[in-house]
């Protein structure tokens, strides 16, 4: 299934299954994230959204199924797969001992970015999210929203082809959220794809072109076309018909 990274879709998931002690969470989930599109990851608490994102990013080991990030398997070629994604987890880890500037400097170096280009991009993203001047603040002193913004910048810095956001808009003020969506639109125009999980159903209904609905117990449905249009008019976590059975 390996394709040249340039031609491969940003994200392809095939037959993904994951179970915990308490039961099956994901069963046979399959979808592809095409360049330029934004897909909503929908579901109530505990439905498996974070588990799905974890399996995609290599943070959780699926029981079955395949994941390809720009054609790379995150469990066989993690370094190549890591270059393709920018991920903001629901509870991002930040080095509390580093300042925002130092953290972003580290991320840029780990991503092997050119130092001056990284500095310029950091400055632009910090300004966009209203963090200009916060470069010298220790990460442990950041508020929840500022910490999340820092994690978002760290995820977008290297211009990834697959952008995965787990409740990334939580804690963001409205202007910052709008500027972030505008930035994501610009990234999509360049060919990046976005998979976003959010409890703000109106927002994702407006912004995304498809939706992957999870309800726990392995139930899932990809809402697209007429089904998605119908869902957008009355967003609800109860809608949709199962694809998994």
């Amino acid at each position, binding site marked *: 299934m390996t394709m040249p990274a340039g031609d491969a879709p940003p994200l392809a998931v095939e037959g993904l299954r994951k179970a915990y002690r308490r039961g099956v969470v994901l069963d046979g989930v399959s979808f592809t994230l095409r360049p330029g599109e934004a897909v909503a990851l929908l579901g109530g608490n505990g439905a498996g959204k974070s588990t799905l994102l974890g399996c995609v990013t290599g943070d959780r080991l699926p029981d079955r199924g395949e994941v390809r990030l720009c054609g790379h398997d995150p469990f*066989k070629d993690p370094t190549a797969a890591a270059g393709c994604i920018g991920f903001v987890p629901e509870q991002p*880890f930040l080095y509390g*001992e*580093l300042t925002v500037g*130092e953290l972003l400097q580290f*991320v840029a170096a780990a991503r092997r970015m050119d130092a001056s280009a990284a500095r310029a991009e950091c400055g632009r993203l910090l300004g966009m999210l209203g963090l200009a001047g916060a470069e010298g603040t*220790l990460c442990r002193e950041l508020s929840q929203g500022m910490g999340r913004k820092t994690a978002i910048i760290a995820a977008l810095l290297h211009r990834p082809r697959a952008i995965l956001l787990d409740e990334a808009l939580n804690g963001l003020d409205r202007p910052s959220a709008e500027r972030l969506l505008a930035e994501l639109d610009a990234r999509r125009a360049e060919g990046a794809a976005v998979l976003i999980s959010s409890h703000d159903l109106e927002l994702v209904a407006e912004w995304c072109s498809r939706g992957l609905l999870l309800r726990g117990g392995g139930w899932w449905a990809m809402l697209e076309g007429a089904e998605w249009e119908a869902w957008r008019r009355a967003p609800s976590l109860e809608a949709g018909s199962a694809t998994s059975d």
Partner: protein
Amino acid sequence: MTPNPLRLLLSLETRRAADPIRNPSAGTWISVGVPAVLGVAALWLGADSVRPDLRGGDGAITLGLMVSAPVAFWAYPILFRPADDALLRRLGIPARASYWLRAMRLAALALLILVLLMIPYAATGTLGPLPLAVAATAGLMAWGTSLSSLSGAAETIANPGRRLELTSMMMGPDAELVRAGPLVWAPLPPVIFGAFAARIALVGVLPPAAWLAAFAGLAAVLALRGAGRFERAAPRFLPQAAEMAYAPAPETGDAGLVIGRGLARVLPPRAGAVRARDAAVVARRFRWAGRIVWPVSVVCVLAILRAGERPAVQGWVAAAGALVLGMQAAAIIGLGRLERGGRRWLDRAAGLATADRLLGRWAAAFGMALALVIPVGITWAMILPGSGAWTWVAAAAASALVASAASLAAAGR
């Protein structure tokens, strides 16, 4: 020019380690400094009891075990459970670079243990090349074997086509524990080989320094072997290691917190609530702190009953008791560190004063130690009348007080 990943990680590590100096806070210094000073003082004052006698092979084995056991048991969290593991993998840091950084952290731990164990020798004027060489040999061997053994266990578990080994099938009915079987056994080789190497260094045909050099070479080979194993295991095992931290609901979960039972009734209600909460969190988050008590208590009671009149036995019982109290103090301080970064909001919202938190946490810490100091203290009083059995209770109360104060300091604002 892009930096070498290991060099990048080392510069990050240096920066993080320097945080208490770059951004000093009273809480950090108190939570680390006070227990460290007290621990060093205890090792200095109790030097005669805790210093293995290196005139024979048994003493070398004991010193070897004292060095290698903590290295072997801390190797797992150091290698596989650092808080930034997922972030580093997502940033594309190669597994080999992460491995060598973690190997250096384990080496630093071994060095710290070695320094601590040399304090009793310094206090008794017996510090010299011999104890240093014996302890360093054990430390090096435990370090190399831990890296190889644990990485090998991880590789076995991560292998999708793995067939269960007999040793894993012996683990019991829990399927997850059976799957993790190789990791359960993995700390044994470093403990055994560390002690074995210490004995050879002391009584072998070559001088201790020669053995030290030989074992250093062997440890380096084992560490290199571990690097390959870790690299192969990392992509599939590290996500599994994160999931292994999942704790099933406690069996007593439905019963709720037990507030104000037994001696805890004398506490003011708010402090009583803090005690119940802290005791439950410590028991679940730092389960080892509670589990260590019973085996040590039983062994200490049996030792006092059988040979309590011998000063050496008294010394070892005191040392074992101090070790348990030290471990429990570490768990209580760890609780404070968990609260760092905002988790204290619940206490603030509930209007808990510092005095309530201190008293409650002290009561939780003291309660945890009672399972040790009551049986050992009573047996001590029975066998050695007039020898100050109450010292055990007083030591537990004082240790709990220091740990609780350090814990609150660690929790920060």
